[in-house]
C-alpha cells in the first residue's frame, strides 16, 4: 500500500505536473542511471540511451500506475529492468528467438529478480550486485554501504543517520532481505550453471 505522500506524488505525476516530475528526476535519475549502467557492463552510451527510454516510457505510461499497488520508484525501476532486458534480448535475437512478452510483463509481474535469468547469465557478478544495491531504497542502500563498504559500526551509522541503533539494525535487516530477493534468481542461475558444468565433466 502506498502512503498518502506517495499517493499525492503519483497524482501530481499523473497530471504531468512539471515540478513533480522535476522532483522525481532529481531524486531518482542517478540511481536509475547507475542501475542501468552496471547492468549494461558500464557502457555509457547504451546506459544513457536506455535511461532516457526509461524516463520517457514512465511519462507516457504514468496513467497506468496504480498508487495502491506500489511506489513510483519501484515502478520506475521495473521499467528500467524491462528496458535493460529488452536490450539484451534484442542483442540476442539475431542468434535466438526469445519470447519478448515475458520481458514486457516483467515490470508489472511483481518479480523481485533484478533481471530474468537468461539475461543475468550474461553479466558479471559484481555488476549485478551493484545494480541490485542501487535498486533498493536510498536509506537502506546507505546503511548497507556504510556497513560493508566503509566498515562503519551499527552505532556509528545510527549517529550518522540520527536514528536509534535498533532502527539501523532493522534497516540493515530489510536491506539485506531485499538484496537477497533481488539476487536470488542470479544465484539460482549460477547454481544451475555450476551443476551443468559438473555433470558435463563427469560425462
Amino acid at each position, binding site marked *: 500500500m502506498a502512503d498518502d505522500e506517495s499517493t499525492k506524488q503519483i497524482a501530481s505525476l499523473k497530471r504531468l505536473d512539471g515540478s513533480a*516530475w522535476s522532483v522525481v528526476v532529481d531524486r531518482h535519475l542517478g540511481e536509475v542511471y547507475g542501475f542501468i549502467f552496471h547492468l549494461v557492463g558500464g557502457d555509457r552510451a547504451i546506459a544513457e540511451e536506455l535511461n532516457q527510454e526509461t524516463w520517457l516510457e514512465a511519462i507516457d505510461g504514468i496513467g497506468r500506475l496504480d498508487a495502491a499497488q506500489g511506489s513510483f520508484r519501484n515502478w520506475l525501476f521495473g521499467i528500467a529492468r524491462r528496458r535493460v532486458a529488452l536490450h539484451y534480448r534484442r542483442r540476442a535475437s539475431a542468434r535466438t528467438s526469445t519470447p519478448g512478452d515475458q520481458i514486457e510483463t516483467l515490470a508489472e509481474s511483481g518479480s523481485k529478480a533484478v533481471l530474468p535469468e537468461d539475461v543475468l547469465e550474461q553479466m558479471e557478478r559484481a555488476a549485478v550486485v551493484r545494480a541490485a544495491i542501487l535498486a533498493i531504497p536510498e536509506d537502506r542502500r546507505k546503511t548497507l554501504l556504510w556497513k560493508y563498504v566503509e566498515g562503519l559500526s551499527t552505532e556509528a551509522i545510527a549517529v550518522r543517520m540520527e536514528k536509534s541503533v535498533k532502527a539501523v539494525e532493522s534497516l540493515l535487516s530489510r536491506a539485506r532481505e531485499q538484496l537477497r530477493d533481488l539476487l536470488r534468481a542470479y544465484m539460482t542461475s549460477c547454481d544451475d550453471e555450476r551443476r551443468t558444468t559438473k555433470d558435463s565433466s563427469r560425462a
Partner: protein
Amino acid sequence: MRDQPNNNDDWLDRLIREAGDPTVSLDAQYVERLKTAILRRAASVPNSPRKVSLMKRIVRVAVAASIVFAVGAVVAWLTFGGSSANIAFADVAKALDSLRSATFDVVSEVREKKDSQPITAAGKGYFLAPCHQRIETSVNLGREAAVKGAEAAAKRIHKNDGPASANRAAQAAAKSMAKAVGSMPEMIVRQIMIADSQAEKCILLYPNMKTGMLVDSKKMRELRNKPAQPDLFEMVRRLVREGNSGTGEKTVAIGKKEIDGRKAVGFRVCVDLMDMTFWADPKTAYPVRIEVGMGSLGNVRVVMNNFQYNVALDPSLFSLTPPAGYSMQTMDVTAPVEKDLLKTLRIIAEHSKNVFPAKLEMNQEVMKALMVGLEPKMDKATEQKLEAVRKEIEAKYGGREKLRAKYGKNIPPEIMAEVMKATMPIMQEQMKKRMPTMQNEMLKRSRGLLFYQTLKPDNDAHYLGGGVQLDTPDRPIFWYKPTGSQKYHVIYADLSVKEVAPSDLPKMPQPKDGLKSAKTNDKKSP
C-alpha cells in the same frame, strides 16, 4: 567467483563488499539534456495547446452564445400550437388585452452539461401594443470566458484527484483568475431582435459587428401553417384562444408562489420543444415571470421577469428598418427538407467517431458534434501577433523552456492571466469577425434537426440510428412518411434513401432481434 558460501549472510556481506560503492557519476551535460527532454515530454502540451484550449473554450462560449441568441429565431420557427384554457389563465389573457406596453428583464442561459455553469445572455425586453416587440441581449465573451476556462482547466487537471478535490481546484482557479483578469478587456456581443407579429416581420441586429439578419416571418407561417413570431403577450392570448377551440395543448395550473415579494399563480404548458411556465399576479392577472425551458436545444432556459406595465416607450425602438451602416443578410427560412436531415446526420456521425447519435435533438452530444470545425482559422498575421505577445511574456520569466521546465502544464494563474490579458483582445477580434458566420453555419448544420422536429405525427417518423456505425450496410436508421405520400422513405446508415411500401418497412427493434442495441427516437412517443 560464482560460488555461494554456506552461510547465506556471510555470502551476502561478501558480495556487497566486493561490489563496492555502486554510485555512478553522471555527465552534467547529459543530465541537463535528459532533464530537458523529460520535462519537455511531461509538458508536451503546454503553451500552444493552452492557446488552443483557451480558444476552444472561447469558441464554445461563442457558439453557446449563438445558441442562446438563436432562441429568438427558434421561437419564430416553433410557434405555439395552442392550449386549452382554464378560467384563471383566460383571465391573464383578458388582462393582456388592455395592455399598452411593457418592459421586462430577460436572461437566456445555456449549459454545456446539466450540472455545468451556464453561459448567460442577459438583457431587456420591450413590448408595445398591439404587436411590437424588442429584445436586447448581450453575452460577455471576455472575463467570463477566462474565468470559466480556468475553472474547466483546473477541473481537468485535477480530475484524477476525485470530484471534491477537482471542484475545490476549479473554484480556487476561478477565484484566482477572476482576481487576475479584473482589468482584462471585455468582449460584449450584443443581439437585438425586433419583431412585428402583425406585419410578420423580424430583424436580428448585431451592433458589434454592424451586421444583421432579416427574417421573413410570413414565409415561416406558410411553412409551418401556424402563426409566426408572436410576442410573449400574444402568445398567452393565443394559448387561451386556441385552447378554447379545443385543439390546443393542456395548460396546467401549478399553484401559488411568492415571486419578488409578490404572490403569483402559476400555469404550465408544454408545446413542441418548449416547456413554458407563466407566473401571474392574481390581482392584475399580468405575468410577473415567464420561464421557458428548451431541453432539446441543449440545456437552454429563458427567464423573463421584472415586468413593468404600461410605461411610455419610444415607437422608434421598434423600427424594422435596419440602422445605417449595417450589412444585412436574409435568414434562410426555406423549409428544411430530407436532404438537410441527411447532411446533418452525416456531420454529426462524422464528428462522433462515425457513429450516429442516440437522439435527434440538440443535446450535448449533438451540439458538440455540430460545433466541430467551427473554430476560427487564424490568419498568419494574427498568429504572428499572438506569438510575439507570448514570447514577450515568456521572456519576462526567462523564456519558454524555463517556464515549461519550472511549471510544466501548471502555469500559475497570475502568469496565465497575463498571457490571456495580452492575447485575448487579439483572439476576440477573430471571434467578432467569425461570430455571424459561425451562427449561420450552426443554423445550416442543424437544419436536419429542424426537419425532424417539424414532422408531424402523421409523418410517422422513427429514428433508430443511436450507436449505429456510419456506412453499416443495409442498416435502416430512420423512416417517415412524407406528407401526402402513401409510401415511406427509409434512410440507411450509408445515408442512402429508399422508398418503400408500408408493408416493406423495417421491423421495429425487438429485444431478441438484431436491432436490440438500437435506441429508438420515435416522433410518436414524446
